[in-house]
Every structure is written in structure tokens, then in C-alpha cells.
């Protein structure tokens, strides 16, 4: 039992926890023996509660996975199995038979990739301007940018649709990409990020005679790469899962993104099979899962970036 509390105070390997671990170390071993027993018991209870919460959170996902790996006739078997012990891949074969998955993936990748790159570029520039450059109307403009985040997408979709038609881009992937590139949240995030970088770096560069553009390119832009990664990953996560805009803006199946394509698996008038539907759901989770595994820290940081200021 002592090992648990001791390990808690060991310096974490994960840099993100450094700060907290420092705090934990500062606490010191005072009072430890006195309260050891009660603390151990409360720790145990706490871990138990947290485990229950974890089961509630991950259980439905596990059920989805294991049901997708069962023959359709057993979809609703009770008691349910949460672990796919004897996987059956017919539902997955069915998904590949019914959908041109490769094309859907290509479309999703193109759309999300270009939106992410576009957002990173524009947000970096605009965020830097809002953070480090002085110009008239900065506050007002920034407030307008922030305010646009509060208008639901459903409100503006019809005018956007007409705009796209006017541009001759109806039912194309560009119709999904172009309107999504200017990003209020990304701009906000990059502004915060640039504000967090030391100001004296820029001042030093200015004293050395660097132009504002050079200061940005050689001093701040390289330092902002982690922030840009956050914008990119957030854009990826959001637009990969996006349903509403593609629903309205694309018509041909050749232009569908993955989430939209999967909906057709549900079938008309109940002719779809639940395990096929769930197989599709699982397939669509994979890219998000990859992002989760590799970009989790950046994502967490990005999602909470608004809390600092």
C-alpha cells in the first residue's frame, strides 16, 4: 500500500505532469505515517469509483466493438459479451461490399487534410497579428472573430450553399474545404499561443535590426510549431467526424466523406443489419483512434486552451 503513495510522488516521465509532480513532491512526507491507514482506504475507494466511471465510459465502446464482430443473428444476445472472443468478420466484409470505402477514406483525408493545413496557415498568420502586431481596430476585429463562434452552423448553411453555387462549386469537395478554412477558434488559439511566447525574443530580434516579417519567420514561427500542431489535430478531429455540413453540401456519393457514407449502412425501412452498422461505426473510429493515440496530449491541450485567459 505504501508503494502506491510513494509512486504517486515519484517524478513522472510525462512532461505534462511535471508541474503537478513538483507540487506533490513539495508536500513532503509530513503526517504520512499518522494518516497512512485512512488515506490508503480512501485512495482505494477513490480508485474504485474512478474504475466504475471508466467502465461506464468505455463499456459502450467495447460493446460496439464486440457486437460488430458477431454474426448479425446474435446482435442482441443477452447477456452481452464485451470481449470479442470469437471474432466474426462477415459484417466488415459486408461494409466493404456495400461501400467504396477507399474512396470515402480518400475524400475524408483530402477534406480534413486540406482544412487542417489551411487552418494552420491562416490561423498562424492571423493569430500572430492579433498577438504581436499593433494596428488600429485590433480589439474590435478580434471580438468579431470570437463572436462568430457563437452562431450555430445550421443558421448560416443556406447562404453558404448559395455562395457555393455562385462559385460553381456545388457538390464538390472544395465546397466542404473552402468555407472551413477561416477559423475563429484556431485564430484564438494561436493568439493565445503567441502571447505565451516570451516577448523579449522579438525585442532582441528588433534590436538586431530584423524586420517584423523576419521576426515572425525566424523567431516566432518555428517556436509556434507545437501550437500549430494543436490547431491541425483539432481541425482533423472535428472535420473527420463532421456530419451536418457534408450532409447538406455534397450530393454525389463520389463526394461523400466517411461519416456520411456510413449512414447508408443503416438501410431503408430497417433492411440494414445492426452488426454491419456497428462495423461501420468501428471502422470510422479508427482514424480518430490513431489521432487519440499519437496526438492525445496536443488535443487535450487544444481543447482546454480557452481556459487560461
Amino acid at each position, binding site marked *: 500500500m505504501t508503494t502506491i503513495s510513494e509512486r504517486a510522488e515519484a517524478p513522472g516521465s510525462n512532461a505534462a505532469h511535471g508541474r503537478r509532480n513538483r507540487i506533490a513532491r513539495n508536500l513532503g512526507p509530513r503526517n504520512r505515517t499518522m494518516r497512512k491507514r485512512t488515506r490508503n482506504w480512501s485512495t482505494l475507494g477513490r480508485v474504485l469509483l474512478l474504475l466504475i466511471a471508466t467502465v461506464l465510459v468505455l463499456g459502450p465502446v467495447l460493446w460496439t466493438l464486440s457486437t460488430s464482430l458477431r454474426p448479425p443473428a446474435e446482435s*442482441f444476445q443477452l447477456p452481452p459479451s464485451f470481449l470479442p472472443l470469437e471474432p466474426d468478420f462477415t459484417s466488415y466484409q459486408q461494409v466493404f461490399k456495400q461501400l467504396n470505402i477507399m474512396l470515402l477514406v480518400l475524400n475524408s483525408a483530402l477534406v480534413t487534410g486540406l482544412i487542417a493545413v489551411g487552418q494552420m496557415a491562416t490561423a498562424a498568420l492571423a493569430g500572430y497579428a492579433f498577438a504581436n502586431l499593433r494596428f488600429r481596430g485590433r480589439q474590435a476585429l478580434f471580438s468579431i472573430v470570437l463572436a462568430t463562434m457563437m452562431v450555430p452552423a445550421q443558421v448560416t448553411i443556406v447562404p453558404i450553399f448559395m455562395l457555393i453555387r455562385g462559385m460553381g462549386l456545388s457538390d464538390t469537395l472544395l465546397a466542404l474545404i473552402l468555407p472551413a478554412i477561416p477559423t475563429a477558434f484556431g485564430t484564438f488559439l494561436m493568439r493565445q499561443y503567441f502571447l505565451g511566447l516570451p516577448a523579449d525574443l522579438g525585442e532582441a530580434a528588433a534590436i538586431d535590426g530584423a524586420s517584423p516579417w523576419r521576426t515572425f519567420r525566424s523567431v516566432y514561427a518555428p517556436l509556434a510549431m507545437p501550437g500549430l500542431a494543436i490547431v491541425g489535430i483539432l481541425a482533423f478531429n472535428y472535420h473527420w467526424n463532421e456530419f451536418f455540413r457534408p450532409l447538406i453540401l455534397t450530393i454525389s456519393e463520389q463526394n461523400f466523406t466517411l461519416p456520411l457514407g456510413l449512414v447508408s449502412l443503416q438501410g431503408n*425501412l430497417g433492411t*440494414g*443489419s445492426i452488426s454491419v452498422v456497428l462495423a461501420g461505426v468501428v471502422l470510422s473510429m479508427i482514424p480518430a483512434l490513431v489521432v487519440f493515440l499519437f496526438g492525445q496530449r496536443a488535443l487535450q491541450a487544444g481543447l482546454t486552451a480557452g481556459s487560461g485567459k
Partner: protein
Amino acid sequence: MPGSDGKLREITRRTALGALGLGIIGATTASWPRLTGMDIPGRGDSSLSIAIMGTAADAAARQRVIDAFSKVHPEIRVKVQAIQAVDWKDFFTKILTMVAAGTPPDVVYVATEGAQLFADKLAHPLDEYLRRDAADMKEYFADVHPSLVEAFMYKGSLFQLPIDWNAANMYYNTGSLRSAGLERPADNWTHTDFRATLAAMRKANTSDFTPYYWTNRLFGGVVPWLYANDTSFLKETKSTGGDWLWTTFYANDPSRSLRSGGYQWLEPNATDPRVFESFDYLRGLVKDGLGVRPEEGGGSSLVGLFASGRIGTTPAGGYWVQGLNEAGMTEDGFDVQFFPRWRTQRHQFGTAGYAIMKTAKDKDAAWEWVKFSASLDAMRLVFTTPNTTPSRRSMVNEQLYAGKGPRHWKVFYDTLDRFPTTGPIPAPPQQAAVETALMKNVSLAVSGDEAQLKQALESMQRDLELALRRQA
């Protein structure tokens, strides 16, 4: 030393970034046709564009029909565009979106749900072509039941030729029927017989078994029960006209006298005592644990549930056979019977066929497609599996259901012959609003007490009034 090292790193970093930038630009350029949709065959050219509901796989399945068509009409170039949608309402929205985008298709495969919406606003009547090609069309109409055709009449004109259709019959699980000690129900079983059947199934099975499973939809929800009780949630009238069609093609049909210029649904009828009676019956089934409270929209779980033996009975049509087969059900595992009788044994059906858009560039070519699609040759190419019922009587045969069931597949087409008043899904031009007004009140109506039922029907009446007042 650190200086030069830094410089080196700077250079490699720049090279890497430059390569990345070039890569992005290269990838964008390479995928430009994909981004602008220019790689989609036939896009923007003058070929006849045909929109169907379904996936690319469905469109590919029609390729053989296109090939056959091209042999007969080498001068007409055709492209089939599959539009994915969750239901017909969703599909029509997509077509309207295409109209709004300035790229409407020339021909659209439309089901009963949207027949009047299209006839009223978007479609071109077939009358002149039918008159012109009457001799060629005789064979088609002789093979198709007039009830189906009448569903596509609107104010005296015909807008579509039925290609496939489905009635709401009653599917049952043979195993659970047998375990309840029952035989196959009689053709003219009544709603009380039906209730008794459910009760017997209830007794003989475990608690996670549902004798009657139904969903809250326009097709197969409450409407079959309303039709069986000789009523509906909308007042049904018929318009005049269309005699030319019936005398030309159905002069000798036994149900000739019933035929009209098309259905009209102009007034709500939710407060009709018989509507109350039907809902009250369903409420009783729910209350006594014989039927489920219906979920809205749902149905994606239905095949799995039925195939796994958790459901005793459910209303469905011929479209269901293939799905059950794929879900692992054998041809002896289930069967189908007519919907139970109440005051009448009138059934509900839905049908679909091609409509020519008003905006079609070449309507003559469009008609050739409509006509060809209704031919026996074309329909044989399309309907190879029982995932819907062909409108041609001659095609609903032993061969189609061989090895898949149900044993009594004859029930499907017999529904039309035995009950000639069998009617289409009630769908005025304001279909979307009407459907919402109906569906949103059904669950409340059948899952509370009598007062709640009355209240739900009154609110349905109000919602329907509002819906019908809209201009569609």
C-alpha cells in the same frame, strides 16, 4: 561549433519544411479533379441524368440496364446517379437541393411518399407519351395491378409507371408460432385473432421476447391498422379525370369502377372515432406487453431482432426477404400472411417509379428511359433478389423466392387482387410536414392512458391542420 551546428539544423529544417510545402501543393494539384468533382464520369455533359436512391453499388447494379438501353437507343447517353439517403424524405430533400444548386437530374426514381410532391411541383406528366405509345404499353399495364398505377395519378394525369412496390403484410416467426401451439393463421384472421395469437406467443416465450414489434413510420406503423379499420388520419378523397387511362388499359379489369384521377388528402382526420379505436387497440397491445412502444424512425435493429427469434410478428413487405436471408434466417424460419382484418382487410402499400422532371433537357429521351425501365427485359435485369417486390405480376414467382422463402410468397401479389381497395401511403404534396405531424404524436398516443390518447390525437389533428395549410 554550436553555431554551425545550429545553421545546419536550420538548413535541414528549412529543406524539410520546403519539401512539406511542395508536397502539400503537389498533392492538392494531383487531386484537383477529385476536389472539383471533375473526375465523376458524365458530370456536366449533356447525357440524360437519372437519380436513384441508393449507393454506388446500386448504381453499378443498374449498369446492365444502361447497357441494354444503349443497345436499343444508341443515340441517348445515360448516367445513373445514386443518391444516398436515410429515408425517402431525406432523398427528396437531396433532389430539391440539387434543384437549388442548379443541377437538377432529368429523371428521378420517386416513391409514393414523394409522388404528389413531385407531381405538384417538379414532374412532367406522362399522358401525351402514353397516348402516343399506347400500343407498346398495353403489355406493361396488363402485367401491373391498377391499384399501383392509381397511386401515381395526380389530378387526372399519370406521372410515373410503378416499377416496384411493397404492401404491409404480417411477417411471423414460425418457430414462436409453433411453440405457442398455433397453426398458420387463416387468410381472413381478424384483429382479435391477432391479439389472441400474440397472447399465446407471450405465454410460450421468455420475457425478452416481443410478440408484436412495430416502428413508428408512415409505412407499416399505425397506418395499416387505420386502413384495416376503414379509416385514415387524413380524409381520403379522389379527384376526377384519368378515364382515358383506365379505358385504354384497364377496360376489363374487375376493379375498373374503383379507379379515379388520383388520391387527394386535403383534411386531417385524426379525431375520427375509428382512428381513436385503432390507436386504442394498439395502446392495449402495448399495455399488456404484447407489443412494443414504437420508436421513431428506427428499424435498423429490426432485421437482427427478427432473425434472432426475438420477435413474433411484425408488419413488412416483400422487400424484407433478402435482408432476413442475409441475416441468417432459413426459408422455414419465417412466413408471411395478410394483415389482419378489422372492418375491412384493406392493406397499405408503397410503390416507386421514374418521374420525368419539368426541367429535363430532353423529355423525349427521358420518356424512352421510363418506358424501357418498365419493360420486362429491364426489370428482369434489376430485380434479381427479393429485396423489393416487382410491380409486374409475372415476375413475382417461385424463382424469385426459391431457397429464401417465405413459403407463402404468393401473399405479396395476392394482396392487391384480393383487396382491390388497398391504398397507398397517404402522402399529399406537404408530405414531410404531414409525416412529422403523424409520427411525433404516435408514441404518446399508444403509451399512456385514455386521456393521454385523446390528447395526443387532438394535438395530431392540430399539427396536421398546420401541415396541410403549408404550400408544401
